[in-house]
């Protein structure tokens, strides 16, 4: 199957907290193909910490992080 590298889903997690943010991120990553990307937005350190820990531990790749006005936009590539 041909992977579409341009696929990029968006998940707005602003206003939500860990572990809710974790679960939604993982659920979304399960839906997409290996190599595809997911863009998420979180607005608190607790969620940020949880999401990064979980994503790293599950073998996905964080390819970009940007912060603006306390909102972190994280682009994750599904690793496996």
């Amino acid at each position, binding site marked *: 199957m041909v992977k579409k590298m341009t696929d990029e889903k968006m998940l707005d997690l602003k206003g939500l907290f860990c572990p809710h943010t974790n679960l939604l991120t993982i659920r979304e990553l399960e839906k997409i193909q290996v190599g595809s990307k997911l863009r998420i937005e979180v607005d608190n350190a607790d969620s*940020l910490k949880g999401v990064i820990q979980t994503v*790293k531990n599950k073998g996905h790749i964080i390819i970009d*992080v940007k912060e603006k006005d306390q909102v972190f936009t994280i682009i994750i590539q599904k690793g496996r």
Partner: protein
Amino acid sequence: MEEANSLSEILSKDLNKLSKAELTEMRRNGLIQQRDPKFFICRLSIPAGVITAEQLEIICKLANEYGNGQVHLSTRQGIQIPGVPYERLSEIQEKLKENGTPTWGCGPTIRNIIACPGYPECKYANISTRKLVYRIKDFIDKRKLGYNLKGKFKIAIAGCPNSCANVYSNDIGIIGVVKPRVKEEICNGCKVCVAICKEKAINIVDEKAVIDFEKCVCCGDCIRLCPFDAIEPEKEGLTIFLGGKQGRHPSLAKKVMEFADEEMVLSIIEGAVKIFEKEGLADGVRKERFGALIERLGFDEIKSLIYGEEDDR
């Protein structure tokens, strides 16, 4: 072994004929006389508070067979079996030894060494607390350290500065730490570390993370959480604290060394215990704790005494 002999000798005597010294020897061996003097609590040595489920099952069986059917979980991660009649002590003691959970550790002894779960269970851990506990226990047992103490001596180990094992209220506290270093060539200034550092020790300067070591407690969170692995361990080690206690007059332990290795920890434990044996005061009623001894002689004096002991080895 001499101690074992003397304990079995004690236990073969008539309860009413036991001397104060013999009762103390029993306490040291974890056999503690209850309010009703015919009964004893058996305190088990459970380093780091970890045993197998099978061992626990045997302890439960023995508690039913020899005790009053209860087990007491002590504040030092130990297990105690209350309500054992004096005549049955030698038997239960043998069975507990066979189980790998011997009775030990009340009175003037080095008490059960406690630890937080540490690595690998806890995601914040910088060290395997359990391994270090077993190493210290082995060291203490082989050298028979603490056999001439006048008061109790407590050791606690935590895997990171969160200190879930109360290291600050033990005579010796040990914390696993890691000093972070930013790899400037990789850091892209994304600010994740700034947001997650609980000490607010990280700032972004010219698009790069800069750590303020006045604030950093060397927990290692930023190393684990940088999305781009741009922070690496510069050095790892153990922070050692001395002289903490609870009881009637609680006080917190003071830092004596940073980034020590395990050898250094063993040396300091040996030094501190020997100083405490030599200099500690006890008059039968009052027993000075190590923290009080430090206050009496001064922290610097204690430090030089400990390092002196170390040279003598």
